[in-house]
């Protein structure tokens, strides 16, 4: 598929899903009502309030989380030259959650201040994952060993999280949704001060895109083509981790979108260049918006957690991708 056509299609999917997201719910709202709620808002009309306060805010949160996680995953996959890495499979999500939980328990942190332990946790998780991968790989560069390291890291930090919660379950009572990965009706509040991170991160990703592409040809080839591999790799990690963390702080550890969106992008329009990056951004948003629609309608009026929906669908996709990687290697 040509990149231009792909971009048009994913933009259309994005728009349609946005409309569907605003209409769908426990009670279906006709498109005309959604239109009125947006452009001729009546604060006394309960239906209008639902569309804006419950759906539009969730839509923005879902779109943001999907977009930044997808870009983070694509950046990680490109600089590590490993199709299996993503914020969740490297353990970044789990590391962030563990540090946040400890930040709450030990220092009583709240709100915006929680971004810092989360960021620290993200970097710590990457370090631990690389260390563990180095121990299991015996020197070889096997894509699976990094994933194994990531899985070990995720387990480690999840256990730490469980431990901290068991120390004082009451303290974390209203955090349960976030711990699974969920979009709540008030999630737009942290997003109100976190969005600049996403915007700047994606902006820099576009800026650096060409150099990151060079790195996919291997460190030595990239260097002789004129890029500085160490600088580009460090810079890209310094983008990818805060991007993922900014989503985790809002919606919790929603997994697999950072893994699946880059794969869909690669499959449809390739992974090189800024159009692919733009495609991946929208694709991530589409995935999480779709998951949120599913979460709100599948068992309506009961709400599912987006994290649960993503874990179910994404887990299967992850399995398929791992099996495909193994097959390709065996061939």
């Amino acid at each position, binding site marked *: 598929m040509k990149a231009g056509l792909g971009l048009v299609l994913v933009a259309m999917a994005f728009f349609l899903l946005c409309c569907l997201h605003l209409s769908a719910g426990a009670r279906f709202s006709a498109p005309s009502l959604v239109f009125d709620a947006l452009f001729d808002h009546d604060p006394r009309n309960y239906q209008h309030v639902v569309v804006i306060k419950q759906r539009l805010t969730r839509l923005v949160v879902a779109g943001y989380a999907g977009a930044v996680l997808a870009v983070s995953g694509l950046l990680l996959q490109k600089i590590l*030259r490993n199709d299996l890495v993503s914020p969740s499979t490297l353990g970044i999500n789990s590391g962030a959650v563990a540090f946040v939980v400890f930040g709450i328990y030990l220092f009583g942190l709240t709100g915006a201040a929680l971004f810092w332990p989360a960021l620290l946790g993200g970097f710590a998780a990457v370090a631990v994952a690389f260390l563990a991968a180095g121990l299991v790989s015996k020197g070889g560069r096997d894509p699976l060993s990094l994933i194994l390291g990531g899985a070990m890291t995720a387990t480690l930090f999840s256990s730490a999280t469980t431990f901290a919660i068991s120390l004082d379950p009451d303290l974390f009572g209203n955090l349960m949704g976030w711990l699974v990965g969920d979009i709540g009706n008030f999630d737009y509040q942290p997003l109100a001060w976190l969005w600049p991170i996403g915007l700047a991160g994606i902006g820099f990703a576009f800026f650096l895109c060409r*150099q990151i592409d*060079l790195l996919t*040809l291997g460190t*030595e080839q990239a260097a*002789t*083509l*004129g890029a500085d591999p160490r600088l580009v790799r460090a810079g890209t990690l310094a983008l990818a981790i805060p991007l993922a963390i900014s989503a985790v702080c809002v919606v919790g550890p929603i997994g697999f979108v950072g893994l699946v969106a880059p794969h869909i992008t690669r499959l449809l329009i*390739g992974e090189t260049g800024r159009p692919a990056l733009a495609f991946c951004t929208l694709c991530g948003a589409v995935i999480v918006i779709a998951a949120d629609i599913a979460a709100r309608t599948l068992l309506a009026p009961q709400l599912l957690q987006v994290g649960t929906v993503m874990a179910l669908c994404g887990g299967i996709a992850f399995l398929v991708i791992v099996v495909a990687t193994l097959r390709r290697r065996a061939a």
Partner: protein
Amino acid sequence: MKAGKNQGEPVLTLEDITFSYGGSAVLDTISLAFNPGEFTAVVGPNGCGKSTLLKVMAGLLVPARGLALLEGQPIPALSRKKLAQRMAMLAQSNEAPAGMIVSDLVGMGRFAHESWLSRGTRDDQAHIDAAMRTMAVTDLADRRVGELSGGQLQRCRMAMTLAQDANILLLDEPTNHLDLKHQYALLETARMQAAAGRAVIAVLHDLTHASLYADRIILMDGGKVVADGSPADVLTPENITAVYGITTVAKAFGRAIVHLPESAAE
């Protein structure tokens, strides 16, 4: 011999280069100079240091002692981009993401000439098109890397290296993955690049190839230069015995020098 020998100053100079990965010296006090218009083949047994030599020239490895100079400037002091404008290298590892489109891959060669504001200019496109014609990969422009054979990918990567339009070309085993026809085509391209005034330095395994296409052969062993000169001077049975440890009979076919093992040469 070919035209272009000894024209002007050397573009690339190595002075007393010593390099080691930690143990014994992989390169041991090597001094060499490379001229524009000359196709040099670096040959020698596995582990003799020829690939390491190429990496030192490319600035990928910084020697422990000695100077590597590009037109008089120390190579490690140049930025990667400045270096890439004057020196291109075809690395040995044949890797590129399966999803990358061939025209994008070849276009990577233009990075060193791009700025944030100007890329994909008509000049860039002209170099990309010319490089793809030279390597006969124009038909593959819209294909994905994953669909290519090893040989096709190698030719596309060579096109990328040519698109870089650098005055020094470093080729690390460029005939890898190629079938007979394309091996000769690639070596012919390398010779044409030298004829156009570039300094071409290639690590080659095949001595016959080296004798047939190169103006100059550097024979290495154990991190030292054993012989350096024209193919006829370097590829003597004595040198081959000294370096490879086998006794050979040399036969000449025009320019080509073929070394046959003594036991099989009857």
